[in-house]
């Protein structure tokens, strides 16, 4: 292949990698909204916490993989705890109060992180096993870690699909999103289902943060940046739809990556223009239920 073709291929790989990572975060957000009806501004903070957790654990253990093994259960447990202590009081409340409580939570998380780890920018080394590049031409190559990252994201997306479509828990989750009382009267502990769904959502965001840590620096504002892009993703895809989140994330990955290459002056605005176009064309999002609520 010629150099321009390879260059194009690299951009496509970058776009897919970014899109998949975004999907992990956005799927957690849309899952929590679709099933419990909660709008969670602190979702980006979970991504940030995941990245910092990866940094701290990798620093302590010296191994990125070991850090993942420690950090993922921690994130899941953190999700269970948060649901029990705070979020279950929000199900019956207006979206306005959910927004405010989770806004307060962002401030707490940001300052908590500042107290514990500081406000410095950190880096997490790429694991040795994947710390090489795959040569594509004489001058161009592609880092193996990024390819592995995309593969891991795809596996997680597949597992998520199986969990929701093929398992008993998944059945309870889907049923619970339609009729909470009916599920309860059938003898399923809906409170427990909600707790697990919330923890899964937190873990997905945190896991994305952990995976992203070696490719980008770990910095204080990373959570809010990803939150905004996640909202755009969910608005484009249709809120509550995992399929929509996947499509939205991929679209944003492509627009953002190719925008940075071919239209650098306006690349920062392209994602918002995409959202504006979807709002004009299909206000409920590409896969949204008929009316935007």
């Amino acid at each position: 292949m010629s150099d321009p073709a390879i260059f194009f291929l690299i951009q496509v790989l970058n776009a897919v990698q970014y899109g998949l990572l975004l999907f992990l975060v956005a799927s957690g957000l849309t899952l929590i909204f679709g099933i419990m009806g909660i709008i969670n501004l602190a979702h980006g903070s979970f991504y940030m916490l995941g990245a910092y957790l990866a940094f701290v654990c990798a620093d302590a253990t010296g191994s990125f993989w070991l850090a993942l093994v420690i950090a993922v259960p921690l994130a899941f447990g953190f999700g269970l705890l948060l649901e029990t202590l705070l979020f279950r009081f929000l199900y019956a409340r207006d979206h306005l109060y959910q927004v405010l409580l989770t806004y307060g939570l962002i401030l707490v998380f940001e300052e908590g992180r500042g107290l514990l780890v500081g406000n410095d920018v950190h880096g997490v080394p790429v694991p040795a096993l994947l710390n090489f590049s795959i040569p594509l031409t004489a001058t161009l190559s592609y880092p193996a870690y990024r390819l592995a990252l995309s593969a891991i994201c795809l596996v997680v997306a597949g597992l998520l699909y199986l969990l929701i479509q093929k398992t008993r828990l998944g059945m309870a989750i889907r049923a619970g999103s339609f009729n909470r009382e009916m599920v309860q009267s059938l003898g399923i502990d809906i409170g427990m289902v909600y707790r697990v769904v919330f923890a899964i959502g937190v873990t997905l965001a945190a896991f994305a943060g952990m995976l992203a840590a070696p490719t980008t620096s770990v910095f204080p504002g990373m959570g809010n940046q990803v939150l905004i892009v996640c909202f755009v993703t969910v608005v484009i895809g249709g809120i509550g739809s995992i399929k929509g989140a996947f499509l939205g994330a991929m679209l944003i990955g492509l627009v953002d990556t190719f925008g940075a290459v071919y239209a650098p002056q306006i690349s920062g605005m392209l994602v918002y223009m995409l959202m504006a176009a979807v709002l004009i064309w299909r206000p409920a999002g590409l896969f949204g239920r008929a009316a935007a609520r």
Partner: protein
Amino acid sequence: MNRRGLQAVLVIGLAVLIALPVFAGKYDLDLAAKIMIMAIFAMSLDLLVGIAGMVSLGHAAFFGVGAYALYLLSPEYGAANLIVSLPVAVAAAAVAALIIGLLVLRVSGVYFIMVTLAFGEMFYYYATGARWLGGSDGAYIYQRPQIALVDLGKGHAFYFLVLIALAASYMFLHILAHSPFGHALRGIRGNEHRMRSLGFATARYKLIAFVIAGALAGLAGYFDAAQFGVVNPELFGWRLSGAVLMMVILGGMGRVHGAILGAAVLVLLENFLGDLTTHWLLPMGLFIIAAVLLLPRGLADPAAIWRTIRERRVG
């Protein structure tokens, strides 16, 4: 609180604010001016959230437009013309609100929250990258606006202008809220479908409310930039949008005077905590969480707070 009582409180409050420069020092006057500016900002959002039922999480975008308008209209090291720059800043915010409003009002509910936040952040990210706006560091405004005998940089001129703006904004919003237009907005908040079937062009009502709220937010932003002499992208950001929403809720939604109370409480708390510790966001966040869980009806109505406590004890 009954209407008489409220009127008495407002008149006393106004008298105190007018007399304040006689016995308060510069620090306290600056703090009071900041509270009044935030009160204008919070009142403008209350028109959307409390009266029309539109929860915007990107209201700081228009605050930022007003602030940056003053920066762009100020000659380098010189003072902007007050009579020109103030209306232009407000108009710029109104135009921005019109454009954004046409887009965001296509959705409602939780979509509206997410889309307003996203568009607000669009302004933020644009400003961080735009060299003509000073980039991520922002820019300085070296002199406050002035005109003929009024120099906002001297004496108490700035304080009194902000006080006049606050009183005028309050009167305007109070009249608006009790006009047929305000009642229509309340109707839309209650049941938009029914209002539409009654023949109200609800989309137009909501857009007008959005533009008015944006213009007033721009006015507040203009004063903020004039007071502190600096603009930076944070003025567009989600943190300010969230803080002003908190002010509205603290004061109790849908009561224009409540927004003033909410602004005072939050600014004073921020000031107090900021003096106490550099990690003031932590107690602030905890306060917000506690307020949401314990004070669903805000602070403006003491009787309601008491009722909530009693209900909890019984229930």
